[in-house]
């Protein structure tokens, strides 16, 4: 046993020497690989962006240590948020957001997540929008050409809507539309945007409120068409789809934000480093091209602007949830 003890001592003291020689007053840079927590499963929109960010950083050597995406999809982001909350002060953890970071603290109060004090918002890179989709050959939506046609049809008939899971963004949106247009629909939850799109084209549901990228394949093949995009302006990726403002429904505006946050209690120095890193990624050509082609909106936001945005969105989601229940 004594040998083991001696050896352990040697190893520990050697390493300590090495550590003390390295640490000196330099500006912050990561000392180990950075964990990028994804509050969703593999293959979703957030996962895609996270892996894109990882790839862009690695390819161009934007950071001295790699970024490692880790999926913690449990509890609609609840698990990921609890994890990051526990990591307060940790300088090597980031979380990419879906809108579930705005809804889960309200829906699952037992988790004890304080959205405004448990995280350090760094930057918003992208916003993703939602469209109302129907199948081109949908048997219940035959003859629907415009969004107004659709509202008229939906009011009289109980249509089936496919969505990504109860209390997720699209069901909240359905709640919003229910209040606004006075129609309701039967909500069938699937496990991801891809399955939702397939359910629509396969004839199981009548309409969906899906992200652009998730329905892109069926849009290009002409199997499904979009009636309205929930933004003030048209999107170059879907030139013929009208925006909700054009149609006279400015209240029908909704975004999915792809922002990055760090745990609470990190130094300003660290915050500055990661915001700078994300800024570099944001302006990377490959990153820009990919997202624009995919129908996403490039929308950088940091600092107080981001904090205001989050406060407004948080309040808005709280309101939607309250009206929903």
């Amino acid at each position: 046993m004594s040998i083991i003890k001696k050896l352990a001592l040697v190893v520990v003291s050697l390493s300590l020497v090495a550590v003390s020689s390295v640490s000196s007053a330099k500006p912050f840079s990561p000392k180990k690989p950075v964990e990028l927590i994804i509050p969703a499963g593999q293959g979703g929109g957030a996962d895609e962006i996270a892996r894109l960010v990882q790839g862009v950083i690695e390819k161009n050597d934007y950071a001295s240590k790699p970024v490692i995406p880790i999926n913690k999809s449990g509890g609609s982001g609840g698990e990921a948020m609890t994890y990051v909350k526990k990591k307060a002060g940790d300088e090597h953890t980031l979380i990419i957001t879906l809108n579930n970071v705005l809804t889960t603290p309200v829906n699952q109060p037992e988790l004890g997540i304080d959205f405004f004090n448990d995280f350090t918002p760094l930057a918003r890179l992208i916003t993703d929008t939602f469209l109302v989709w129907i199948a081109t050959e949908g048997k219940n939506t035959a003859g629907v050409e415009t969004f107004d046609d659709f509202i008229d049809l939906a009011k009289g008939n109980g249509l089936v809507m496919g969505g990504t899971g109860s209390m997720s963004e699209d069901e909240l949106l359905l709640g919003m539309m229910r209040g606004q247009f006075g129609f309701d629909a039967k909500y069938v939850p699937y496990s991801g945007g891809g399955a939702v799109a397939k359910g629509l084209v396969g004839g199981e549901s009548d309409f969906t409120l899906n992200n652009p990228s998730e329905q892109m394949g069926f849009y290009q093949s002409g199997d499904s068409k979009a009636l309205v995009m929930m933004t003030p302006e048209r999107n170059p990726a879907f030139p013929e789809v009208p925006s909700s403002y054009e149609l006279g429904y400015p209240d029908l505006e909704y975004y999915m934000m792809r922002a990055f946050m760090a745990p609470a209690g990190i130094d300003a120095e660290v915050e500055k480093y990661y915001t700078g890193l994300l800024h570099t990624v944001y302006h990377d050509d490959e990153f820009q091209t990919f997202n624009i082609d995919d129908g996403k909106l490039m929308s950088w936001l940091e600092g107080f602007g981001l904090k205001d945005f989050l406060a407004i969105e948080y309040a808005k989601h709280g309101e939607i949830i309250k009206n929903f229940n």
Partner: protein
Amino acid sequence: MSITNKITVKRAEIAVAVILALCSIALMIKSAENRITWNAEENMGAGFLPFYLSLGMLICTILTIIKFVLKRSPQSKDDSPFIDAVAFKFIAVTIISLVVLVLAIGYLGIYFSLIFFLAFYLRYFSEKRISFITIFAITTPILTFLFFEWMLKIPLPQGVSEPLFYPVYDFMYGGFSFAVKMIFIILTVLLPTALVFLTSRFIK
């Protein structure tokens, strides 16, 4: 000796059945936190399936208990010890050392915990020489580190030992060529071996 003799298969069978019945009841109560109804107006509640599944579990354990009382199952007639004394000791040591290992991982981190776990476990169960055990206990965590953190980029818990790994990461992701890194890997694996051989010579 006496304890393992007293725990007969018969007693274990009924004890386990009762524990499982209690677990089933606990599951039913827990499931009932969500709606457990399913009728024409409302669709299946979130608690419906877990509730009735655990009810089914309860029924099965009750059937097992009935079979036990009626002496219909082979276990209900078996008075031999559930586990013999020697095996009991092995199993107890294994389970306790695993529990200690996982506790230690939470604090010390996985790599240092593994050294202690392997050293203890091999010392206890194998008749290998201490030099072999030392090499084994040190190289296994090193290989684990290389495989998980370097090759697969899966971070394993490091607990309080985390700062010790910063220089390693600096080296891994520093601008060294592949060849330098490979030589380093080979050295890290060989070094403990050489060290142990040398020290064991002198200590003898």
